[in-house]
Structure formats: structure tokens, C-alpha cells
């Protein structure tokens, strides 16, 4: 979530009590005169709540963050449209870090376990969350999945979110870095169409750069859109498939993981 925006909505105490009411009313015959306090509108009472509907997830995310910090884990939440290359990017990242950093993955998928299987065959510890009809991961799901991994044996935990640029934007998972992917084949104006997601990112990665020419990708326009919307993000351009540009990203990740371990 953006620190500068002050966009987090506050909680509040449950205040119970009827609102002040003033009315002239007539009681039925035989009703004695009295000064009384009663609930307005025939026994209807208003309870002021003033609470954020995201509060439950925010609390769970804070619990996750405390756990991850205690385990000295660097945690990434990887988001994008369906098919932008999340699984490929995560698999290549983990493979390149073999012998340097130990990477585990939590993968969210609506229906299949194909992505989990693809990662597992690369020797990466993986936990799969099948979300069914739920279009995003939430902090509770991540907590449950994380409990199935041996976190003491990991340096980096990567969470592959459900392919969706809308709903995951609102759900903090307790991650250190929110990484949004934009592939060269999906349209340079995605950041303008999904500003909350792109704005909340700490890292924006342009993927499938090997396809840029074939897709007629307008790099300047894409970068302009990212610089405008993802103005908190560090931007990388790479191809997970052929490896171009991966080094810059891996160096950055290595530095961040080192900082996390020395905290």
C-alpha cells in the first residue's frame, strides 16, 4: 500500500447507542405523560460502526509480516494479467539463484495445479492454493500455505497471485515487495487501465522483451505509463525465456535479500 497517499482507511470503536432524536409524538389513549428516552422509530436502534471492510485482511497481513520478519524472509507478491509470465519469471528467478538464495513459492490458481507442477519439476519447494471462484489471494490463505513450508530453510518466499489486475490490488499479503508484470504482448496502456494495481507496486517488470518487435511493442509509451502510474516502483525490462535483462533484477533481489537478513 502506498505510504504517501494516506489512503488506508481507519478503524474505529464500536459505539452503541441511539442517535439523538427529537420528535413530537402521541401515545395512545391511557398512556401516562412521561419524559422518557426510548429507541426511535419503533424499537429501531442505530449502531455506529465506522470500520474498514479490509481490516480483517490488514490484521492478518500484519501477522504474516511479523512472522516473515522473524524468519528473515524476503517476501514477494507477484501480480499480473493472466499469462503475462509470472510462473516463468518465478521459475527462472529461483533457478538462477540456486546455490545463492533458497527460494520457496506459494502459487495461487483458480482451478489447476499446472503452475505448481511446473515449479516443482524445477526443484522448488511449492505450496499450491486453489482459490476456486475467489479471484485473489488474501493474507489468511497465505498464512495457511506458509505453514506448509519450512520457512527456516528459505531466504526468499515468492507468492504468485491469481492472474488478475483488479482484486489483488486491495489485498496486502504481508509482502515486502509487490512485483507487477507487464508483458510486451498485452498492451502498453495496462497501467492506465489498472492504476491501483500498478500504483501499489514496488517493482514493475516488463516481461517477454524477446517478443517486443513481433508484438509491435511501443517501449517509450509503456515506460511513460509506468513512470506515471507506478511512480514508487523500480522498473526492469527482461525476458525470462531467453534470460536477457535477468541479471539486473537478480542483483536487485540479492541486495534486498541481504538487507532483510541483516535486519
Amino acid at each position, binding site marked *: 500500500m502506498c505510504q504517501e497517499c494516506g*489512503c488506508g482507511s481507519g478503524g474505529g470503536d464500536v459505539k452503541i447507542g441511539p442517535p439523538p432524536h427529537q420528535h413530537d409524538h402521541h401515545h395512545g389513549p391511557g398512556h401516562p405523560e412521561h419524559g422518557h428516552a426510548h429507541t426511535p422509530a419503533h424499537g429501531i*436502534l442505530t449502531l455506529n460502526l465506522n470500520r*474498514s471492510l479490509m481490516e*480483517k485482511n490488514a490484521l492478518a497481513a500484519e501477522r504474516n509480516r511479523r512472522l516473515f520478519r522473524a524468519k528473515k524472509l524476503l517476501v514477494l507478491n507477484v501480480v499480473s494479467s493472466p499469462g503475462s509470465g509470472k510462473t516463468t519469471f518465478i521459475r527462472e528467478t529461483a533457478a538462477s539463484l540456486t546455490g545463492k538464495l533458497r527460494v520457496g513459492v506459494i502459487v495461487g490458481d483458480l482451478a489447476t495445479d499446472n503452475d505448481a507442477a511446473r515449479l516443482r519439476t524445477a526443484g522448488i519447494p511449492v505450496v499450491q492454493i486453489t482459490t476456486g471462484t*475467489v479471484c*485473489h489471494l488474501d493474507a489468511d490463505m497465505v498464512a495457511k500455505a506458509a505453514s506448509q513450508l519450512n520457512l527456516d530453510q528459505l531466504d526468499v518466499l515468492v507468492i504468485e497471485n491469481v492472474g488478475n489486475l483488479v482484486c489483488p490490488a*486491495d489485498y496486502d499479503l504481508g509482502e515486502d515487495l509487490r512485483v507487477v508484470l507487464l508483458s510486451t504482448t498485452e498492451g502498453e496502456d495496462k497501467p492506465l487501465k489498472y492504476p491501483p494495481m500498478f500504483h501499489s507496486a514496488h517493482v514493475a517488470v516488463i516481461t517477454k522483451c524477446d517478443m517486443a518487435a513481433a508484438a509491435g511493442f511501443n517501449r517509450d509509451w509503456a515506460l511513460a505509463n509506468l513512470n506515471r502510474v507506478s511512480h514508487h516502483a523500480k522498473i526492469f525490462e527482461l525476458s525470462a525465456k531467453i534470460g536477457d535483462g535477468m541479471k539486473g533484477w537478480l542483483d536487485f533481489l540479492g541486495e534486498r535479500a541481504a538487507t532483510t537478513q541483516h535486519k
Partner: protein
Amino acid sequence: MHEVSIMSEALRIAVDAAKSAGASRIVKLRLRIGKLSGVVPEALQFAFDVVAHGTMAEGATLEIETVPAAGWCATCQAEFDCVDLFNECPRCHNFSGELRRGRELEIADTEIS
């Protein structure tokens, strides 16, 4: 959008409060939804009918107050009206991606009997 998750959370908060107050029924629920929250009010109504079914809030009225969006210009140290997330400050014409209001997803109050 995740209207069902949001509505279930609203209902959970309202039911907890109503039960602690000894109520038997929830007759109204008022939400405050930011114009730029991405949540569709009609979808919330639909989700409400689904999640309230069989609970003490079944048949209750759902009232949604829409909160207009306001941006914050760091240069002018002033607020301005926004139509989307990224707007030009009408005074200095700098772009600002920082919202002050308009992304709310809140439950305001509930009426019980």
C-alpha cells in the same frame, strides 16, 4: 471484483455488533464506498442478497453512500477533485497519483431491532 468477500465482511461486523447489542434483526446496513474503490454498487447489492440469506440481516436494506475522490497536491499542499486515480492539480498542473479520499470500503452503521 471481490464484492462477495467485501459484503461477507460487512455482514460479519454488523452481525457481531447486533448480537452484542442483543438485537434480533438487522434492518439496514450503510456502507461508505469510494468512487474509485473499483467496487460496483449493483454488484454489492447482489452479493448482499446472497450472503444475507438465512441470517438475521435477510431482507435488510442496503444503503450505499458514495464518497467522491479527492487528490492531494504536495506542491500546493491542497486537495482537489479527481475523476480518476491520476489527475492534474488545477492550480499548478502537476500530476498527482496520491489520493486523499475515494478508495473507501467501509461500513458506516447498521440499524437493528
